[in-house]
């Protein structure tokens, strides 16, 4: 019994102190990793946001380029655009000029979920499709009338599940499209 008493180990106060201290350390390390993983999640969604909005703006630029001066109308204070593109099966008329009679009319405007999607509508066929998501603002402007260069500006921002808006101020992307057809 005497031998056991000499093997005392920690007393209660010591053990509690050790647990309290180590919990502080563990909490700190945990916090560090949580901040890190949160940051990587933000970076990931930022990258996706840039990627998809850039893809969307290029889709629009590609299509607007196929239009011609006099066939582009910017509507609703620049929030939507209506333009004609040649029909792929009837590109050229009998006079070897672009056949604008069978051309399709395309519109781009914000709509869909929370009005944060760019909606493309082919008003000739009635088909609609979504060009981009998480768009907070979309503006079109022209350099002259009739417009030869259309400038597209869009703002993009996403709200994460944590309620945090990424990026904190909307990311702005601008592209210009020269309407190239005669």
């Amino acid at each position, binding site marked *: 019994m005497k031998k056991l008493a*000499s093997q005392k180990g920690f007393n209660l106060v010591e053990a509690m102190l050790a647990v309290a201290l180590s919990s502080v350390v563990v909490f700190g390390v945990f916090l560090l990793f949580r901040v890190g993983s949160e940051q990587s999640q933000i970076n990931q969604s930022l990258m996706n946001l840039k990627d998809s909005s850039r893809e969307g703006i290029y889709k629009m630029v590609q299509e607007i380029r196929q239009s011609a001066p006099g066939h582009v109308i910017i509507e609703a204070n620049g929030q939507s655009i209506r333009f004609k593109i040649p029909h792929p099966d009837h590109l050229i008329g009998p006079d070897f000029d672009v056949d604008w009679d069978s051309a399709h009319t395309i519109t781009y405007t914000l709509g869909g979920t929370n009005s944060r999607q760019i909606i493309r509508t082919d008003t000739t066929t009635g088909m609609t499709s979504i060009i981009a998501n998480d768009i907070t603002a979309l503006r079109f402007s022209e350099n002259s009338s009739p417009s030869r260069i259309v400038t597209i500006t869009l703002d993009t921002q996403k709200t994460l599940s944590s309620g945090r808006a990424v990026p904190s101020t909307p990311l702005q992307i601008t592209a210009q499209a020269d309407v190239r057809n005669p």
Partner: protein
Amino acid sequence: MGPLTDKRDSRGFTLIEVMVTLFVAAIAIAGYIGSNIATQRQAAELHERAIAAQEAQRVIEQIRDKAGTNNFPGDVVAAFPNGGTVAGMNALPNEQIRVDYVNPAATPLDTTVTVTWQSHASRQQTAALRAYITKRKMP
């Protein structure tokens, strides 16, 4: 006498030992935070570069608009002179855009658009975009 009663073994850490431990831990944490900051800085630089490419693309598009003429490349060079700067582009701090041609009389026109700007780290940055501009049917 068991070994645990030996006073020398149950003394705990010395001040020097604790300080060394703290020092090593501080270096490890500093490395982690430093790498995070470096990543962030790199991302910001990449973002600026993407904007610069976008600005150069806009200028190329403006040059293409001047190519729909019977006076090619004369009208293009008149609107965007060789070695001249383009006004009104300001998506980046202290942004300057310069247009150069390999030969201003050639068809197609070998065009280089150079974007220079002051990066967030207050370093001068440059991005260049090269494209061939061809004559287009007049609208």
